[in-house]
């Protein structure tokens, strides 16, 4: 096969972890650029134009969140944060700073690869002129053009808010959406609607679309951060 797989910039100061990532990614045909501190990142992004960046937050010479914010000013490269900081506030802050996803250390290689695939696909889709209008998640089928949602062929009756929610998640399938992002998307940036509204509507949406009420097999709650629409394996 060719060696023109996606180019991944790995910003991580811990050598053992870089080694693990390098081994896992190269065996899946990713190309790697490594940086062990914040100072080279801007230059590396400019010179190599990577397809994806994996970014540690606690770098010896700077903070990953600051770096993300600065990169976002001029670059659309998908950024996945990999950090030992497990607090929800850190995740929310990173997502709101412009990161596409967040992985808490320790993580398994499958998890990492899955997240990378999602991020890469979204970046790719973003660049395509006409986005798909029909999404399928298991039994669930969403047709954005005709505004019809069916489960196992049966049409579901959704309220406008629920449909808007579902549309938002379908377009961002596999990505964590923070409460703030959801609020802004549904009610507009200037609205002072609070998080519990999202939760209540999500609960109602789940009751309608989830195949098993007890298990959230479609919508995963990232406690304190937001929700993620799980893609079928």
């Amino acid at each position, binding site marked *: 096969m060719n060696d023109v797989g996606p180019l991944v910039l790995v910003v991580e100061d811990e050598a053992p972890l870089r080694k693990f990532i390098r081994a896992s990614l190269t065996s899946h045909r990713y190309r790697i650029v490594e940086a062990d501190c914040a100072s080279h990142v801007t230059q590396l992004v400019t010179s190599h134009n990577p397809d994806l960046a994996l970014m540690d937050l606690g770098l010896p010479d700077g903070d990953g969140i600051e770096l993300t914010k600065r990169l976002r000013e001029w670059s659309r490269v998908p950024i996945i944060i990999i950090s030992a900081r497990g607090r929800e506030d850190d995740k929310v802050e990173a997502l709101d700073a412009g990161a596409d996803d967040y992985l808490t250390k*320790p993580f398994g290689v499958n998890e990492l690869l899955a997240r990378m695939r999602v991020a890469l696909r979204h970046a790719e889709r973003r660049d395509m002129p006409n986005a798909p209008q029909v999404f399928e998640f298991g039994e669930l089928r969403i047709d954005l053009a005709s505004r019809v949602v069916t489960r196992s062929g049966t049409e579901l009756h959704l*309220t406008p*808010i629920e449909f808007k929610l579902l549309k938002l998640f379908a377009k961002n399938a596999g990505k964590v959406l923070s409460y703030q992002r959801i609020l802004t998307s549904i*009610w*507009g940036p200037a609205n002072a609607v609070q998080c*519990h509204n999202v939760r209540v509507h999500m609960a109602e949406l789940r009751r309608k679309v989830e195949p098993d009420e*007890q*298990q959230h097999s479609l919508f995963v*709650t990232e*406690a304190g951060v937001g929700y993620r629409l799980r893609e079928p394996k």
Partner: protein
Amino acid sequence: MSVEINEAIFRPDPDALLRRVKDEEAKAKGGKLKLFFGFAPGVGKTYRMLQVARDLVADQKLDLVVGIVETHRRRETAAMVLGLELLPRRQVEYRGHTIEEFDLDAALARRPKVILVDELAHTNAAGSRHPKRWQDVEELLAAGIDVLTTMNVQHIESLNDVIAQITRIQVRETVPDSVLDEADAIELIDIAPEELLQRLHEGKVYLPEQAKLAADHFFQRGNLLALRELALRRTAQHVDEDVLEYREAQGLSNNLPAGERVLVCVGPAPSSGHLIRSAARLAAGLRCPWVATYVEAATLTSLSDSDRERLEAHLRVAESLGATITRLSGNRVSEALLAYARRHNVSRILIGKPTHSRIWDRLRGSLLDEVVRGSGDIDVHVISAEDNAGAAQPREHRSRSEFRLAPYLASTLLVGLTLGVAALLHITFKLPDLEMLFLIPVMVTAVWVGRGPSLYTAALGVVAYDFFFVQPHFTSSVTERRYFLTSAMMFVIGFVLSELTGRMKRQERDALAREQRTAVLYALTKALSSAISPQAIAEIASHHAADVFAAATLVLQTSPEASLIKIGSWPHDAQLDPKELGVAKWAVEKLKLAGLGTDTLPGSATICAPLHVGGTALGVLQLRPRERRALGAEQRSFLDVFCRQLGVALERVKLAEEARTAAVRAKTEEMRSSLLSAVSHELRTPLASITGAATALRDDINLSSFTRIDLIGSICEEAERLERLVTNLLDMTRLEAGHLLLKRDWIPLEEIVGSALTRLEHQLTAHSVHVEIPPDLPLILVDPVLFEQVFLNLFENAGKHTPPGTRVDIQASKRGESVAIEIRDNGPGVPEGFEGQLFEKFNRGPQTVTAGAGLGLAICRGIVEAHGGSIRAEHPLGGGLSFQLVVPIGGTPPTIARSIDNE
């Protein structure tokens, strides 16, 4: 001639020895006092002091400052000051004049080695820190500064009245003998009286116009001779003590009569002052300890405020003259006195000569007589009250209330009424019987109104009776002798009755006051005993004190940084006035009462009483009387008792706190070590598996591929276990640190439960989980992340500790203002009685082997309790284990936005 004496107190008495040791300790720390002592103004004390000062500066190059020196515009003296460093004086505004005073604070700030402070007996201007200069000097000495000072013999407290008798001039500025006794060196400045008179005439002592005045009064040869003798004798007394000390040090026995002890009875009468000074001189002569006592007899009516004030003043004087003060009480004065004297081996009792007539003694019994008869082998000295000092002070007005008209009007009305009744009865009764009728208003007024109105009623009654009923009618002439008797009778009855009633009332009032104080103290003690924090104590005490002393109160506590912190006040918003902080600091530093109406900073607005136990300062009780008035003696002694109670309470809490801290520390230590061993066990177990498996994979090339996969699987599992443990440990640490910030939000319970179940879907595949959450269950105000953790831990437990196929039920319902959640399984459960211990750290159940649960339930409990809820485990009917959570809803759930505005 000048005699220089090294002085030290010595008495053959253990207490005295102890005191001497303390004196010496104090001296070792403090500065030295050198006193230039003279018998009259103009002998050259100041001059001599300056001479010594100049020598010290010239010879020893000592850091010496002139604090204050009065040259009285004497040229030679003024010349001596030149070249010495002068401390600027303090300017004090007093009644429109500017007075220059010694600046104590400047002196303390300057901290010279030696300071000159002239005229030890000087009285400071109002508003100074201390009323007297000798108190300033004591503070200088305490600060370790050596002091040179001057004083004349007539200012010595114990010689005060003797000198008043000799010179007929009452000296008001006195210095306690103790100051003199504690002086390290005394230098007597002595010149012949003739020479002094000569100098006076030459104008060297006073300016000419004053000199004439002085010569006429004070500077008479007879006076000067007497004063000189006294000064010499007082100095000789020091020499004597010096000799004694020398003999003692050399091991020579002294020939003192063993066990002499003088007791003096002090009362409120002004003559007691003389009595005290006599006792002091007698005790000094005998070189024995002496005791001043006041006996409060149950039979006597209590003292008026002014009497009590004077009594306290007397006792203070006695204390300053070296007496031990004791207060006795008993049925009879003589009994109490003699009992005390016997118990304490008193050898001599001093009693004042009675000033009342003999009839009084007949009626009431003579104290003197009783004491003399009962004294046995104790000598009784009877001291006459000298007339000048005693009589000079007027017998204090017997707390006379101001004149009020109403009682007299009422009395008049009463007599009028009686007159009317008498007129009506006159028809049937004879005159002498009607007389008796007029006793009624006299008795009534005597009992209910007072002496004045009662006597007035008697007089009015006699006149009215005479005027209206006695022949000739409507004249006031009294012809018959028996009417005199009637009048006299009425007066006597009025007088006696009113006196008796008055006494009864006073006694009643006293009893009431005593009872009130006892009640207050009782209430205080009771309230304090249940208080468990200094703040609570301060709160209670300030409230009580505010009531009793009619003042705004503050309780300040000493803190380790040596500053004072307010811990309670009444009213609550009372703040520490920075201006009054100095008073409080002084009080706590010297452990003495300070502020308004006391010896220290009497001009301030507050009274500060130190709170201490056994000399360890704990704080200050500050009173700001609503009316700016000093406390009476009674109130002062009450304040003393009050502060003692408060001090003991504070000390108790402090000790309890220390004990508690120690216990907690021990417990924490114990827990920490058990936790550490548990944690290290929990951490090492998975690490051991990982290391074992990893090394096997690395080193053993002969492993079958099946074994390899198995080992890799166990590495992953153990790593996960390790991660869970670390997460739990971090959570636990956050919880235990106590500053867990709850980020509460309104959450649907099903989201939390569902999320937790989803995350554990792999662990729970073999179990059948049933969730029953009513759709109308209200949102609850909880931290979503922490609560998910609760359910994660509970579900994980259910998954781990029950066999596959076990049914797990999750049910929720609204119960009042809370939501009740039950997580029940039908697994093996835990042994009976073990339910409570489940929530302890590292309690993993008796037989369980599954790892990582050691902290899970402890974390659950921590989180639920942080939300104000509760969690418990119990055995449900039908077996298994049930966890029951109750979580407060947390208010009124918010409304939900059902529309999209921006579309």
